[in-house]
């Protein structure tokens, strides 16, 4: 063990002793002492590494890939708690004990270039790009440009690429990559098509010529079956496909997974089309890493939700389902999934504006809360910007006598739980979800060591 690793591990122990978690601190210390630590530690993994990034679904997709690969006994180094900047990746490598075969890392959109450059992964999955936290990430085009550089460099080094055919911005990244080096995945079930692009849809224009894409089917945000009218771009034919998708409210989903080697019906224990996309991405990456279709299907059926992603706990005698919302595209999918449940709903919606949430809360006006407006029995709004969320719901069409504001999280939780019975749906932003986790853990409702990430 080098001196640098020893110091970094000691820093992690100190941080944990002081009750501050420490999921990325040791790695940050290590990178300060040894800027190439990720390359050095990653280079020791006999099967190399796989990296994935996306705006939405990183933690869940990585958990699915892990569930698949671990079926055959592959020992992973995996930042499963979702600490996904360079410090988090370095910490996962530092904390790995005993023999490890393969690295599996979710990486923040913005940190992707640096981490990929050091890790030189065998495979790189890029799953989607949505408008997210403009104050932190900047414009979508800027991220896409950075990713194009990452893809060019990685492809030149022989990295296998796994790309979402249905996301025009992501699919375009593979346009110039050799066909045998890239795997596209996509959903082929036109019965799921939306009537048109949602308001928050972003990459509506061809990245090559600027003409608006023509959509034969819009499936999720700007994901769908599209083509450029001038012929510059069209959705690539995906090799890994989801067909015959069934969505069962906030509970689960099922789909037929089709790949060149065969088909399997998959009963996914997670809800919503967004999780079908996550499963499809995980399946495509796992195949590239050598998993069989049987292991893929079995792993997907065994995956447990990450905390806050459709997790159900009991509070005040009622089931409360936690559905993380953090940007317009993700929130829209949660709202759409909620709509599949019959009747009027009790909501506990928590809007924070801490750094990890994005200081700018304008995104709630891009999310389509109008979808749910006629189906709200009671909305309890909490968080640092509870009042703004209440105004959003009012202008979406929720009657004001059904909107209640209680900024303090725990009081809000109790008020929401005490008012009414039956299912309660919690819609927290990221730091609100972490705070809620702590409250629930303190009350013995939830495990204290949930794997939470973004």
């Amino acid at each position, binding site marked *: 063990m080098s001196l640098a690793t020893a110091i970094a591990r000691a820093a992690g122990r100190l941080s944990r002793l002081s009750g501050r978690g420490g999921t990325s601190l040791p790695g940050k210390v290590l990178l300060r002492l040894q800027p190439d630590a990720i390359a050095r530690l990653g280079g020791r993994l006999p099967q190399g590494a796989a990296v994935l990034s996306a705006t939405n679904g990183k933690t869940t997709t990585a958990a699915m890939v892990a569930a698949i690969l671990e079926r055959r006994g592959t020992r992973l180094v995996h930042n499963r708690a979702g600490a996904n900047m360079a410090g988090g990746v370095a910490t996962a490598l530092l904390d790995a004990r005993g023999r490890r075969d393969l690295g599996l890392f979710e990486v923040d959109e913005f940190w992707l270039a640096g981490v990929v450059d050091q890790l030189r992964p065998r495979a790189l999955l890029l799953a989607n790009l949505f408008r997210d936290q403009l104050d932190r990430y900047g*414009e979508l085009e800027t991220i896409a440009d950075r990713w194009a550089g990452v893809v060019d460099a990685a492809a030149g080094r022989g990295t296998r690429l796994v790309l979402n055919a249905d996301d025009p911005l992501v699919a375009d990244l593979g346009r110039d990559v050799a066909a045998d080096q890239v795997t596209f995945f996509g959903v082929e079930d036109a019965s799921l098509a939306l009537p048109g692009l949602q308001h928050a849809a972003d990459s509506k224009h061809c990245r090559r010529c600027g003409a608006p894409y023509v959509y034969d089917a819009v499936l999720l945000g700007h994901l769908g079956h599209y083509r450029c009218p001038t012929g510059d771009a069209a959705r690539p034919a995906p090799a890994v496909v989801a067909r015959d998708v069934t969505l069962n409210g906030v509970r689960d989903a099922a789909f037929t997974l089709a790949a060149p080697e065969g088909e399997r019906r998959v009963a996914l224990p997670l809800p919503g089309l967004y999780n079908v996309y996550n499963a499809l991405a995980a399946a495509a990456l796992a195949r590239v890493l050598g998993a069989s279709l049987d292991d893929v299907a079995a792993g997907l059926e065994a995956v447990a939700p990450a905390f806050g992603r459709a997790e159900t706990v009991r509070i005040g005698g009622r089931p409360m389902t936690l559905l993380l919302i953090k940007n317009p595209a993700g929130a829209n999918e949660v709202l759409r999934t909620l709509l599949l449940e019959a009747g009027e709903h009790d909501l506990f919606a928590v809007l924070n504006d801490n750094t990890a949430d994005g200081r*700018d809360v304008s995104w709630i*006006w891009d999310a389509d809360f109008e979808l749910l407006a006629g189906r709200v029995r009671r909305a309890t709004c909490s968080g640092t910007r509870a009042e703004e969320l209440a105004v959003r719901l009012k202008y979406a069409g929720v009657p004001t006598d059904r909107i209640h504001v209680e900024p303090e999280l725990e009081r809000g939780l109790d008020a929401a739980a005490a008012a009414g019975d039956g299912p309660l749906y919690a819609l927290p932003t990221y730091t609100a979800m972490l705070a809620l986790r702590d409250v629930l853990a303190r009350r013995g409702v939830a495990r204290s060591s949930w794997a939470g990430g973004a």
Partner: protein
Amino acid sequence: MPALRVCALYPDVMNIYADRGNLLVLERRCAWRGIGFELSGAGFGDRVDPDAHDLFYIGGGQDRDQELCAADLVATKRDALAAAAEAGKVVLGICGGYQLLGHAYELGDREIRGLGLVDLRTVRDPGPRLIGNVAIEVDLDGGPRVLAGFENHAGRTLLGPGEQPLGRVLSGHGNDGRSGTEGVRRGTVIGTYLHGPLLPKNAWFADWLIRTATGLDELAPLDDALEDAAHRSARRAAGR
């Protein structure tokens, strides 16, 4: 029935900071009072009729989109918008839309020409983007009021001599991070960096726009308990 007729310019692309929230607030606050509301959009190549609308709205967009819009504005809409401003119609530009109201946006070796409705220029500064919660004091008529919102811009906007800002920065960066001024106001032409979006956090300003654009002297009061709380919350976020 009185009506507010709004023309949103490039609503498909100049909408990056939830500009639809601003339009929604205008619509609902008109509807709750029995004031008609018409919303039309004008995209690339579309001509606009200065007499057919009471309020013209330009939001913010990604850099590439803003540049495309600038060229189209100058080519197909400048004269109409100048005539509208001359006739006392409200022209509201927010963030990128604010920059486009001025003469130009200078990007080092090249410049994007704007509408020139007001005397200002925006320059790209090598310094950091100006990002954060912001509160400004404005005096539109009848005394000082506060507008609160969020700003996120790389450009520094410099007002020409004699041009009045929309307000004075109470906290945040404002036009250029130095002058203590924010936005621009020349009569009914208003530009500001405040988004977040602006009007849900500042219902009083939405009503000012409705009054000014429709010519109605008085608006029926609404129950603004939630809006007032959101305004206070946005001010708290900005430390004011």
